[in-house]
């Protein structure tokens, strides 16, 4: 396949939408890291609003650099024909497991969890890359088992395939990312032709079991064992009633909803949200970046962001549907599943309908590993698209 043909096959609507999301995110990050300098009360002090300080600017510049790197990586992914990838999947799976083990044994601890390993001057978050690796390896795994996914018994190897790396991530502990694995798995299984009734049954049954377990735990916290720390349980359930601990666990959720709710239809204007600018909103350039949009650009802003994501996902599904082969279709489905789950959980968290799990908003939250992962994912979509059977769009 020629260079020219690849470029001609690229889904430019998807690419453009992705770049728009990133551009949007850079503005939001600039606003989120915008520093408001305290004044001394009682003195006639000039209004010091609107001063961007250097370290804050750093973050926007860093994210731009990550974007450039991301576009580069995306290009690289685009040009290595995905049809050649299956031969590397075994190695990828092993590397993935090794990286995750490395996190557990030599990883850096932050906020009660080990998620990072240092590679030279860089700090990497292997669980981010694990998501993409699992999409690629699982797509190959499923493509080879096409038509043999009818019964639960036939599904068991698939569960084991995903379950092992997922367990390693759960041990970090990183509940959010492990849930992403589940989303990816079910999305891909569905697309691979697994019986929807069986899948639905498993999801429903698993959900019921999970809720039942949690419920039993709350009834009798001393006797019922749960594979989570107390603080994890608290953080998982606080969104149901954030005012249980308004200054502790519930603080993020409350402040985020205040930010979004007070934004109204048009928002308070970029750089003008009191919740954001005065730092009532926590982690506003990473996990809660969507709240900044909600506060400063209002309903119009939030719907615009969601619309852009919807376009990306819609194009992703179309790519999956139009893919040349099952492997390509599953790759695209994995990416779509990953992104939609991230959007649901992250945005859901900011508006109080999902627990706080620390999942970033793809392409939007500040963070290098996340940006790289998502750009690789987009690269995969473009790759599959460029090699589809016929031009349909």
């Amino acid at each position, binding site marked *: 396949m020629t260079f020219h043909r690849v470029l001609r096959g690229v889904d430019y609507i998807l690419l453009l939408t992705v770049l728009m999301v990133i551009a949007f995110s850079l503005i939001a990050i600039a606003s989120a890291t915008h520093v*408001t*300098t*305290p*004044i*001394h*009360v*009682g003195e*006639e*002090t000039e209004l*010091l*609003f609107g001063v961007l300080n250097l370290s804050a600017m750093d973050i926007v510049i860093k994210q731009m650099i990550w974007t450039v790197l991301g576009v580069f990586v995306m290009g690289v992914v685009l040009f290595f024909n995905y049809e050649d990838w299956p031969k590397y999947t075994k190695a990828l799976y092993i590397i993935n497991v090794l990286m995750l083990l490395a996190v557990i044994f030599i990883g850096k601890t932050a906020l009660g969890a080990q998620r990072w390993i240092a590679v030279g001057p860089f700090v990497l978050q292997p669980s981010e890359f694990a998501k993409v690796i699992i999409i690629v390896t699982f797509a190959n795994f499923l493509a080879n088992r096409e038509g043999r996914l009818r019964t639960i018994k036939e599904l068991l190897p698939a569960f084991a395939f995903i379950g092992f790396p997922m367990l390693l991530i759960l041990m970090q502990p990183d509940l959010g990312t492990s849930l992403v694995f589940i989303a990816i798995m079910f*999305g891909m299984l*569905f*697309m691979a*032709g697994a019986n*929807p009734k069986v899948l639905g049954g498993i999801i429903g049954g698993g959900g019921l079991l999970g809720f039942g377990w949690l419920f039993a735990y709350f009834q009798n916290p001393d006797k019922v064992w749960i594979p989570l720390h107390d603080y994890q349980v608290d953080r998982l359930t606080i969104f149901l009633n954030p005012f249980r601990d308004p*200054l502790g666990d519930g*603080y993020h959720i409350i*402040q985020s*909803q*205040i*930010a*979004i*709710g*007070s*934004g*109204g*239809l048009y928002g308070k204007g970029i750089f003008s949200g*009191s*919740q954001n*600018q*005065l*730092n*009532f909103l926590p982690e506003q350039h990473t996990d809660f970046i969507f709240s900044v949009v*909600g506060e400063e650009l*209002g*309903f119009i802003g*939030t*719907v615009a962001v*969601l619309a852009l*994501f*919807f376009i990306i*996902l*819609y194009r992703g*599904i*179309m790519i*999956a*549907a139009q*893919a040349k*082969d099952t492997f390509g*279709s599953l790759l695209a*489905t994995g990416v*779509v599943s990953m992104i*939609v789950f991230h*959007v*649901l959980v992250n945005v*859901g968290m900011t*508006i*109080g*309908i999902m627990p706080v799990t620390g999942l970033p908003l793809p392409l939007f939250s500040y963070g290098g590993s996340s940006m790289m992962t998502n750009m690789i994912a987009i690269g995969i979509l473009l790759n599959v698209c460029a090699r589809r059977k016929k031009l349909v769009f």
Partner: protein
Amino acid sequence: MEQKASKKRAKVLTSLVFLVFAVLVGRLAYLQFFQVEKFTTLAKQNHMRLIPIEAPRGEMYSRDGETKIVSNKPVYTVSLVYLGLENTSQVAQRLATLLPQITTEEILQKLDQQKLRLYQPVKIAAGVSFETVQKIEEHRLEMPGVIIDVEPVRDYPQGDIAAQVLGYVRQISKEELEANKDKGYGPNDEIGKEGLERVYEEYLRGTPGARQVEVDAQGRPVRDLGISKPVPGDNLTLTLDRKLQRTAEEALAKQIERLQKDPDTPSKAGATVVVDVNTGGILAMANYPTYDPDLFVGILSTEKYNEITKIGATSNRAIEKIYNPGSTVKPLVGAAALETEAIEPEFTIYDPGYFKAEGTQKIWDWQRRALGQVDLYRGIRESVNTYFCTLGVKIGREVMTEYAKLFGLGTKLGVDLPREESGTILTPERKYDIWSSYLSEETKQEMKKLEAKYNELLDNAETKAERKRLQDRFFAELNLAANSQKEREYIWEMEWRLYDTAYMAIGQGDSKYTPLQLAMYTSAIANGGTLYKPHLVKKITDYQDKLIKEFSGPEVIRDTNVSSENLAVIREGMRQVAEAGGTAYGALYDLPVQVAAKTGTAEFNVYEEGKVVTYSDGIMIAFAPADNPEIAVATVIEYGGSGSGGAGPVVHDILASYFGGKLVDEKWVYPAEENDVLSENQR
């Protein structure tokens, strides 16, 4: 993969994604359309702060309207904002090491008390020294949420005078905050706790201002949004005379210290009140022991507070404590006897040296000898018990009670201070209750039965004689129930006896009055029979000197309607008290003005090491000049021994200061012997 199935699944996936987005957009619409107002308010509460600016409290001026007794001075205060940070307790700990007077627990407790108003600064300490402020500034970065401010606190330019009258100001308590919640008090506000500060709180307080600022999540102000200036409180011009007040306090202190040297007069406390006889304005109200009101400014340690309350220094004895008046009631009994026409001024008795009533022991004259012919003047001048016992029995208990009340004794006078006591006038019912309480349980049971039986009979009784007969029978039957001689004595005492009437006439027994009541009664005699309402504030002006309220015309409680001729007789008797031959002559003879006075000695028994020891409070009432009275004084010295020797020197110095004379100390060392001759050291 089969193309068709794949497309179908893609459609399902699209629908699922669409569903996810529909849920998100739905929730966003709910928050951003329907809950905008709620969240806008919450956001404002987050970042808009009203920082109250305390209004300087109104000041208090001496009678002259120029000398400040209470004013304000600026001091540093340290406040802390709870930032919802986990390290608040660390900050509190840090702060506690820099503020020696307060512990970490106390700081956290203060924060806790204000949970309702999170993010509002909580005042931790006022009156913080400049050095401490500097230290805090040096460590500012390690202590987020600490705010240093300058605010006005109380200052006492005249030093420690009139502490109990002025009262003090402290941070509002939870209960007070609850009680005053519709008056705009905040948990950091100060409120007048005692004295004039408490009574005139609404005037003195002023209107607090506020600065609206925008703050960040750390509570740091980022923008000034506006200010409303505080309005200072109104100023009080008091009736108190700074100089006279000072003299009164010093005289009390010196006299009590002098008395303490004598084991017979182990005095620890006393009070004196000086009033303007023509207005009821209080010129001086002094107490001993006393304290420096400056103690209540800034940080007050518990030990220091306990120290002054333990000795009773915060008590305004002049209005809060009640005393047996002793012989100082004799002029009143005289006036009552004249007014009810029980006697003429010339009414004379032959005094054998004692009064004897109804088979009881003799009530002796303090002179303990036959005095011969005694008329009203001599009776007052030499404080003759026999004469007044005779008058008392002549006019009876009811008349004496009526006149006591008429002159404001045993009733609340409505002075503009908190905690005024009403005093008590002994009644037969009260005497019955007092003595019956000493009876044994069995006898009490019996008494209750008898009471039930005889109350019914008494209700049906028709004639006075019949009632008397039933009462006698009641006591006779109760007497039979008694199981000891001692109890029979108590039962005897349960009845009102003529003896009690006689006792009442010389100010012994269980009728007790405040020093202020004695002063007001004295001034009513002095001014020709008008009982004015005692007060401490002459006028109230706002901070720009505009008149808010003036108490120009004196407020009359009542006109006693005792004829001026009769009062003139009493005044003449009292004038003679301060003349040669009078009981107060020794104490007051050298004053440059004619004084009218009356001494009083009120005995009481104290158990000391198993023995009954008798001590006396020394009381003196006086007014001057005798012919055209201006001021009246009442002084009570606990354990003072006698009226003249105990209270006399205090009255002397007050009058000397007012009319220009030498103080006791400037005169000579007080000659105890000379005084003994004339004092009523025994009755």
